[in-house]
């Protein structure tokens, strides 16, 4: 039987770059220390091969560079990333850079054992993000208009008329933008988060996003203090396109006065109707007719 919580390492293994080669070496060092290793190439063609190991173990992802191929692979397969490291960032801490040649330089080779040890002691991402909040699955309602389909969550979210949402649990909320924003902006390529600690009034800017077509601010539906930003989103802004209401969250806030904020917001059913109207109106504006 597979050992519970055994580290399972998914390296990027990009063999054409030094950072990729380092991620592979780090994975092998961890293998020697008893971890399981997933070959990203084999995993891609035959994910079942690793199912057992993944189910019982704790996933550590090692990305080479900012492209984050290993993280992406994990996300695409719905894997829960428990820990994560990026080789380029490890290098940066030592004032080093990924070299042009994919062969690992001797200086860097010397650093690998220490890094492997550090990876073993990495803290879980989940713990940093506030424990058990926002883990419940979300169900959606949808409506179709013309050739578009718009999704709205069924419960637990509050919206302003700037198409931004707050997912509220206790005294915390996550903020993001709606499916409508995602579809009208098309491919999101950039997310600039606000600073952690920033005080937000209702309708203040909680970060901004850019797409291939436009730019916009995330306009906060609630007042509170920013306690976390979604680092995954900084690295992969396209999460807003693929999953605008859950994985595409932008910031987390400690709410300061939700009871009064709430009076000015729409609940899920309210936003569903509002969006329906809005989409129709826009269509009329663009193509005429009543």
């Amino acid at each position, binding site marked *: 039987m597979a050992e519970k919580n055994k580290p399972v390492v998914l390296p990027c293994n990009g063999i054409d770059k030094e950072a990729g080669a380092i991620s592979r070496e780090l994975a092998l060092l961890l293998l020697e220390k008893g971890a399981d290793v997933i070959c990203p190439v084999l995993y891609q063609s035959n994910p079942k091969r690793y199912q057992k190991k993944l189910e019982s173990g704790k996933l550590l992802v090692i990305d080479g560079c900012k492209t984050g191929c290993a993280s992406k692979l994990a996300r695409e397969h719905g894997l829960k990333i428990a820990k994560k490291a990026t080789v380029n960032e490890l290098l940066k801490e030592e004032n080093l850079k990924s070299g042009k040649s994919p062969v690992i330089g001797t200086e860097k080779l010397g650093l690998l054992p220490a890094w492997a040890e550090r990876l073993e002691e990495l803290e879980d991402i989940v713990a940093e993000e506030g424990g058990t909040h926002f883990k419940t699955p979300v169900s959606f309602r949808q409506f179709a208009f013309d050739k578009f389909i718009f999704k709205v969550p069924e419960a637990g979210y509050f919206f302003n008329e700037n198409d931004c949402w707050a997912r509220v649990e206790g005294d915390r909320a996550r903020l993001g933008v709606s499916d409508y924003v995602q579809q009208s902006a098309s491919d999101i390529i950039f997310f600039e988060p606000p600073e952690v600690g920033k005080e937000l009034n*209702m*309708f203040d800017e909680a970060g901004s996003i850019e797409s291939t077509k436009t730019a916009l*601010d995330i306009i906060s539906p609630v007042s509170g203090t920013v306690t976390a930003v979604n680092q995954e989103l900084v690295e992969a802004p396209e999460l807003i396109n693929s999953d605008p209401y859950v994985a595409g969250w932008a910031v987390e806030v400690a709410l300061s006065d939700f009871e009064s904020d709430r009076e000015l917001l729409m609940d899920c059913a309210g936003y569903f109707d509002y969006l329906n109207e809005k989409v129709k109106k826009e269509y009329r504006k663009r193509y005429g007719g009543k």
Partner: protein
Amino acid sequence: MQVSEETFMGVPRKDIPWCPAIDYEKCDYCMECDEFCPHGVFERREGEEKKLVVAHPENCVVFCKVCAKTCGPDALSFPDKTETLELIKRLREDKRDG
């Protein structure tokens, strides 16, 4: 049939004075803001002294300020957010009280 009146948070849009104001001392008519805004708020006036005007303030999305970021000379300003929100709250109460 008359098309229903535009509202924002339940208040007639025309009662909310939210839109950019152009500082003509600073504006160099680069037209970046007009290129950017998809809502038809600005209008160009060829041959006039003020070559760009805020022709349709009611089209501006309340609490949006994004075009200001496109303006190099920092010529665009907006009303105060808190005051605007207070006004909206007041108008909502008036409506509720009849």
